[in-house]
Structure formats: structure tokens, C-alpha cells
């Protein structure tokens, strides 16, 4: 099965304020798809729906064929999520944090340690496994969040503006990691308002004021125009600082 995520006719309101309107798209294995949109476009709401934190009305979300509204546990078991906010405990070591998360996914201690070592190797952070997160800088903490999301070996990796607050080098490192994961076969869904995080061959879903404005490969959508310029033209916004 190449299709990892399918969203059909998804809408959501916050009280009287519409947040998402009739969103439909699919994601495929091995693709890096950027959910591009200005602040307030509805990206976080879409990710909250995708991860089962809020229930859409109406709309259908299926992950690896599992309907999120009826089989959320099966869907969530195939998914890794990096939220905008930090989720790890700063007073615990990276390994302790990852063990807790592995237990939430039902991994035994032995299986968890094996998977933790694999993930730390993939992200090249094995040397810092026993360090407390409080001792790490913002960039490293974000990589640890990515490590946490990879513990269940997800087929779909969802990242909600994972580079917020990071310097250019840390942003580049996280973006490169996510692209490598897509090349290795994971479907990566990357929410951002920064067009420079998107490579020409990546897929782009443009979200603006709760509506899906465009969906396709970055080069096809923008043509010869730089993607950042195309993004501003499409959304009518002011340039975002990189």
C-alpha cells in the first residue's frame, strides 16, 4: 500500500469561526509533503485532527486504512508526531524519556532499548542518550523530539512547525533528517510557514484561511518562480522572516 494517509471532506469550526473547510488530499509512502501556510491558516488544527486530538465534523481521516474516528488506536500506532510545543521531560535523560514513550506504545523494556539504540544511531545522537534534556540547547531538544517520534517506527511522520525558534544550522539539520527519513520510505508530513524548508522535488499542500489552495510538487506549482515568492503571491501575505 503506497497510500499512507487519506483525508476526505474535512471541515472544522472553532465556535462560529471556520478553521478548516472541505479539505481532501492523500499522502504516499516515501514522500516529503510540506503543509505550507501562513500563521492562522489552520495547520495546527489540521494536525490536531490528524492525530485524534480533536474530532472533525464532517470529514474522514484514514491512516494506513484505519479510520481515525473509529479505530484511532490502530491509526495512532502507525504514526509519529512532533508537536510545535516540547513534549519531553527536561529533568529526565533522553533514554528515560524515550523509554516512557516506548512503553506508551506497548514496547517491552528490551524491545524499547533495542529500538532506542536504532533511532539514536539514525539521528547520530547516541552519545547524548544519558544526558538530561535540560542540559541541551533548543536545536538538540528538537532532534530529541524527532527521536521520540521515530520510536514506534512510524509509516507516517507528522511534524508541526518543528523548526520554530531554531537557528539556521539547527533548522537545516532537522530538515535534512526529515528528508532522509522520506527517502528511506516514511511518509513525512511537515507543517511550516517557511518556504525555504521545502526542496524542489517535495510535495506541497498550500493551506490558507482554512482552505486547500494548491496541491502538487513544489516545482510544478511554482514553475520558475521561487517557491517563497509563489507562496506570498498565493496567500497575499507579507514576507515571512526565514
Amino acid at each position, binding site marked *: 500500500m503506497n497510500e499512507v494517509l487519506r483525508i476526505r471532506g474535512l471541515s472544522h469550526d472553532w465556535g462560529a469561526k471556520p478553521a478548516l473547510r472541505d479539505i481532501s488530499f492523500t499522502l504516499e509512502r516515501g514522500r516529503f509533503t510540506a503543509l505550507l501556510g501562513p500563521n492562522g491558516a489552520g495547520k495546527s488544527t489540521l494536525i490536531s485532527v490528524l492525530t485524534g486530538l480533536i474530532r472533525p*465534523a464532517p470529514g474522514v481521516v484514514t491512516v494506513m486504512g484505519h479510520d481515525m474516528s473509529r479505530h484511532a488506536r490502530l491509526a495512532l500506532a502507525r504514526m509519529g508526531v512532533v508537536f510545535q*510545543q516540547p513534549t519531553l521531560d527536561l*529533568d529526565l535523560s533522553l533514554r528515560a524519556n524515550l523509554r516512557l514513550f516506548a512503553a506508551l506504545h506497548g514496547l517491552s523494556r528490551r524491545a524499547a532499548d533495542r529500538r532506542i539504540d536504532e533511532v539514536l544511531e539514525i539521528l547520530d545522537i547516541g552519545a547524548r542518550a544519558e544526558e538530561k534534556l535540560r542540559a541541551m540547547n533548543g536545536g538538540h531538544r528538537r532532534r530529541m523530539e524527532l527521536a521520540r517520534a521515530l520510536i*514506534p517506527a512510524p509509516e507516517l511522520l507528522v511534524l508541526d512547525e518543528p523548526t520554530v525558534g531554531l537557528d539556521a544550522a539547527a533548522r537545516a539539520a532537522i530538515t535534512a533528517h526529515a528528508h532522509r527519513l522520506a527517502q528511506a520510505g516514511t511518509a513525512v508530513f511537515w507543517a511550516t510557514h517557511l518556504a525555504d524548508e521545502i526542496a524542489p522535488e517535495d510535495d506541497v499542500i498550500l493551506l490558507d484561511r482554512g482552505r486547500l489552495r494548491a496541491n502538487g510538487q513544489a516545482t510544478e506549482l511554482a514553475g520558475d518562480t521561487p517557491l517563497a515568492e509563489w507562496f506570498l503571491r498565493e496567500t497575499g501575505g507579507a514576507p515571512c522572516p526565514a
Partner: protein
Amino acid sequence: MPRLSHALRALAAIVWREILRFALQRGRFLSALVRPLVWLFVFAAGFRAALGLSIIPPYQTYITYETYILPGLCAMILLFSGMQSSLSLVHERENGAMRLMLTAPLPRWFLLAAKLIASAVTGLLQVFAFLVIAWAYGIKLTLTGYLLALPALALAALMLGALGLFLSATIRQLENFAGVMNFVIFPMFFLSSALYPLWKMQESSPLLADICRVNPFTHAVELIRFALYGQFNAAALGWVVLALIVFFAGALWGYEPTRSRASG
């Protein structure tokens, strides 16, 4: 239903994390102990002379005021522990840690129940540390009393933790939490049998005595009091179980996905 092994691993991890966090916050542990100890050493000493206590069940003889307020202080520790957990949950929801929990592939009711059990375990650790100090101070009970009090304390901890869980679902911002102190903790504690028997309250104000009788905290105190003396108070048990069910149902309602808000 999740696989049993999965559920047990997740439960153990959530409880262990709570204990670890509690152990790392020494200030929280000390303040949790100082509060009831001040009541026991200072307040009780002052009121011993002023308050005359007749023989009331479960006591077989005249008792000191310190002995009378011991169960109430145990419940007070659990009340503050439940509210502290509630505060942590509001903080976790604001900083994102709660999202991590709620997106685990486990039913939401199970995750909330696991958080509740974890909160109860840390509350029980504080109560038994307090009971050890009270024992050293001279308020000694039988070993059977301590053992029989454990299920009563656990049930009271779950009920008060469920109240905290329910409040955390309804409080949207950390700043609003100060109101909980004024509108929940103090009325619950003072409008109960923790510090004075209900007949004393009845003499002063029948209306306040009636309010005390419907306060679930009163019944938690009485459940603990009777259990510490090897006795069983069925009415108190019924009230505490009922309150636990109502508060936990309220928490489930509050954390239902259709009621949640995204961050942006």
C-alpha cells in the same frame, strides 16, 4: 480494549514517571509535609484546650485533638496532592506534554485513569511519610489500622485526584488556577469533619452542618478515620465511590476530543 501487556507497561511507565518527577521535586515533597505538620504541631496544640471532644465513633474513649485531626490531615494531603496533579495537568496541556499522552495508541479513558492512579500513588507516599512523623510525635495506631487505612486512603486519593482531573479539563489557563484554591480547596477542607466533628458544627450552624454532610471530602475523612481504627463506614464508602464516578465521568467529558482546542 488494549492488549493487557501494553496497558500494564503504559500504566507502569506513567506511574513511574510521576514518582520520578515527584522525587526530583524535593521542595514539593517538603511543602506537602510541612502543611499538615504545622496543623498537627501548632494548630492542634492551640485548639486542644479550646475544643472539647465527646466520645464519638469510631473512638472508644476520649482522644486528644491531635488524634482527632489526624485522618483529616491525611485527607488534606490527598486533597492538595490531587490539586497539585491538576495544576501539573494544566501545565502539561499548555506546554504540549499532554498531547504526547493523548496521542498514544491507547483509549483516552485508560490514559486518564493511568494519570489518576499515578497521582494517587504520589499522594499515598506523602500520607505515609506524614503518618511516620505523626507516629514519632506520639500519635500511634495499630499496624492493622495502618494496613486497613491503605485501601481507604487509596480510594480517597482516587476521588480527590479525579476531582483534580475534572478541574484540569475545565480550567483553560494556568493563571486561572489560583481560583481553585479559593473556590475548591478551602471550602472543601473547612466545610468537612476534618477539623471538628459534625455535631460541633451542628451546634453552631445547622445549615453549614448540612453542607458538610454532602461534601464528599467529609466522607473521605470519615472513611479514613474509621479504617484507621479497623472499622468500616459503608455510607462514607458509598459517597466516596459515587463522587469518584461523577468526577471521573466529568473528566472524561472534559477531555473528549470534540471539546479540545488546538493551539493555533
